[in-house]
């Protein structure tokens, strides 16, 4: 097993504490000490979030400690008895997913710190516990090596995020659940067909078993998997949940906006390039590329015309899923080079870091100045320079400007489509990049050099810490991109190296 270590146990106990506190507060309300002053309430409010941040930090360290063992392509597996003869609780830690787990822990830590800095926060122990639950489910999903377990944790992540949003605004929560759940049912149909065809639920066995399937069946399965994951990636036409969440609960929209696309992209990578031989399903390429271009352009154009920073961040999140779909679509061509899968892998790590910076900058500005309308925040740079810097580096990384991390992903994607002679894809990518960069520069110009000077001084220590942390991580990856590129190459050689004749290199 290799995973039961003292630090694992400590992390698990830390993860359990907010749940325990939430349950005790509900079952035994009289045991809680009375809170008499606002100051006492304010100091107690941060406790669950700081505990959650500590647990996430431990998770980061634990993930990093596993990396040396996995760097040579080996895998750590754990197989628990879930049902005797149907499906098992299988987990697999490999070089592809452990950095994603570290990323999820890092995102969780920064989000906990950000929530600790927000001025108004009801029921902090509930929210911290639910965020930890969503984070834990996302980690379990990344590590799952069984299609039923993967689907279970996909759904459980959604339920945890629904609880968070629903407590704040019922309609926004319901739109989130309805949109993503309908996609889940389509995904489930695809997984059931795989299960029936292969008589096996282990993800590593699926590529070999699917080789004997009819090509038409493979096409149907691939399309069902892709369409089922579209809502989680917030791709057009399943993106409405993100916009409604931003409109209804602007202070908490960043939670599903950051976690669900990471979860969706991880599942997509595990199931499509990691579970099927993409060149055998060319129809997937056409659908994915068309949806990718539509998502990219709708997101980029709507971001340009957004009047609030929250909506702009939401549309940029949507736009960025377009790059992933384009990479997957290009990889489904029979002559596609492996660079497209490498692009999708890089996207999984670089996009969340840029989006984290962007969303935290927006959240910090909103909580500090009480609004996120761009026209009301003109000239805010003089009183709050750090959020504007965070917004700028996050946005420009999404636009693929060098030397930010998004540039490396886009470099691989553009070189791949040029090599394949896909000129229309290249035009779509470069055009969308120009629009995104123009939109980000325009907002930065208005916020930086606008005429209105905000009288409010910006003082929010925990917001500063979370934003600075996100910015430092993004800039570190920008300055030292080599480990990132080596990781994507290693993942391509091991976990994502599947061929019907030669089999998977990870076996």
């Amino acid at each position: 097993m290799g995973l039961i270590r003292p630090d694992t146990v400590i992390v698990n106990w830390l993860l359990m504490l907010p749940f325990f506190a939430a349950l005790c507060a509900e079952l035994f309300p009289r045991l809680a000490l009375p809170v008499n002053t606002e100051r006492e309430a304010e100091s107690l409010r941060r406790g669950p979030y700081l505990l959650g941040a500590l647990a996430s930090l431990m998770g980061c360290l634990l993930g990093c400690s596993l990396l040396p063992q996995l760097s040579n392509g080996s895998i750590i597996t754990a197989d628990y008895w879930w049902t005797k003869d149907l499906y098992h609780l299988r987990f697999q830690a490999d070089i592809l997913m452990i950095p994603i787990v570290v990323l999820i822990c890092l995102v969780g830590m920064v989000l906990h710190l950000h929530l600790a800095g927000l001025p108004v926060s009801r029921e902090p122990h509930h929210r911290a516990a639910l965020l930890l639950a969503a984070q834990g489910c996302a980690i379990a999903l990344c590590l799952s090596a069984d299609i039923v377990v993967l689907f279970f944790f996909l759904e459980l992540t959604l339920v945890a995020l629904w609880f968070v949003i629903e407590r704040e605004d019922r309609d926004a929560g319901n739109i989130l659940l309805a949109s993503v759940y309908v996609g889940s049912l389509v995904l489930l149909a695809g997984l059931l067909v795989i299960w029936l065809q292969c008589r096996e639920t282990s993800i590593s066995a699926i590529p070999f078993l699917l080789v004997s399937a009819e090509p038409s069946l493979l096409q149907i399965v691939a399309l069902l998997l892709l369409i089922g994951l579209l809502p989680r990636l917030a791709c057009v036409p399943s993106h409405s949940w993100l916009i409604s969440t931003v409109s209804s609960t602007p202070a908490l929209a960043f939670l599903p906006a950051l976690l669900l696309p990471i979860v969706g992209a991880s599942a997509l990578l595990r199931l499509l390039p990691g579970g099927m031989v993409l060149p055998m399903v060319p129809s997937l390429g056409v659908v994915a590329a068309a949806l990718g271009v539509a998502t990219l352009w709708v997101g980029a154009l709507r971001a340009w015309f957004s009047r609030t920073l929250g909506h702009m961040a939401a549309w940029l999140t949507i736009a960025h899923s377009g790059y992933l779909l384009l990479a997957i679509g290009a990889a489904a061509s029979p002559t596609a080079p492996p660079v497209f899968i490498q692009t999708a892998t890089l996207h999984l790590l670089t996009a969340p870091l840029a989006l984290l910076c962007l969303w935290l900058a927006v959240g910090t500005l909103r909580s500090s100045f009480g609004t996120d309308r761009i026209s009301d925040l003109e000239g805010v740079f003089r009183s709050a320079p750090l959020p504007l810097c965070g917004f700028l580096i996050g946005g420009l990384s999404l636009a693929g400007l060098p030397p930010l991390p998004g540039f490396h992903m886009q470099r691989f994607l553009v070189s791949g489509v040029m090599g394949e002679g896909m000129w229309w894809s290249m035009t779509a990518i470069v055009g969308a990049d120009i629009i995104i960069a123009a939109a980000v520069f325009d907002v930065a110009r208005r916020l930086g050099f606008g005429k209105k000077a905000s009288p409010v001084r910006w003082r929010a220590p925990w917001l500063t810490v979370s934003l600075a942390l996100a910015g430092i991580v993004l800039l570190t990856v920008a300055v030292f991109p080599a480990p990132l590129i080596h990781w994507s190459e290693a993942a391509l050689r091991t976990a994502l190296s599947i061929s019907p004749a030669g089999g998977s290199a990870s076996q």
Partner: protein
Amino acid sequence: MTPEASATTLAAIVGCTVLLLGAAILSIRARTNAETLVWMVVGGIAYALFGLAAGMQTADSNGLRACLVQLTAVLLSAALAALVIPKQKPENLPQSSLSALLARLAWLSLIGLPPGVGFHGKLLVYRSLLEAGWMWALVLSLVGSAIALIPFFQMTGSGRCIPIRGLRAMFATGLAVLTMALGAYPALAIDFADFLLGVSFI
């Protein structure tokens, strides 16, 4: 038509009709949460009937097992929901986070979402339908699951639940823990179903 074939057809037709009438129409049109719960339970039993019919079609134990796991899930969720959902319109009830949480867990299990055992019940039913080659029933079941979100949203949006204390609170919490424990360890539910069927898989 042989007696077995006619029984299979009858179970499938009854399951289909009850699913359409129970889950899709009557639960949406219900006026109180208690009525909605009753029709949702009827819809859940229809899924169990589908599993039964599929098991009879394929002549193996998977369908019957799915039927029993689904019935276990429905009964547990119904018992939990009945403890916290008010019989009448809940305008004057005080706020209770515990009741609201337990009600949501019960409803999530009823519509087949984790962490409750309802997830595994529905999953096993879907699988047995596919094994029986009944694609129409699988599509109908998936559509039924999507439609079940409407009464779920009506229930969560319609207000407060009965505040529970003391023994009732402990009993309801115990039921919720059992529902989630069976969701986390479905082998227990499947073993229970196997025990009932008298089938050994050793």
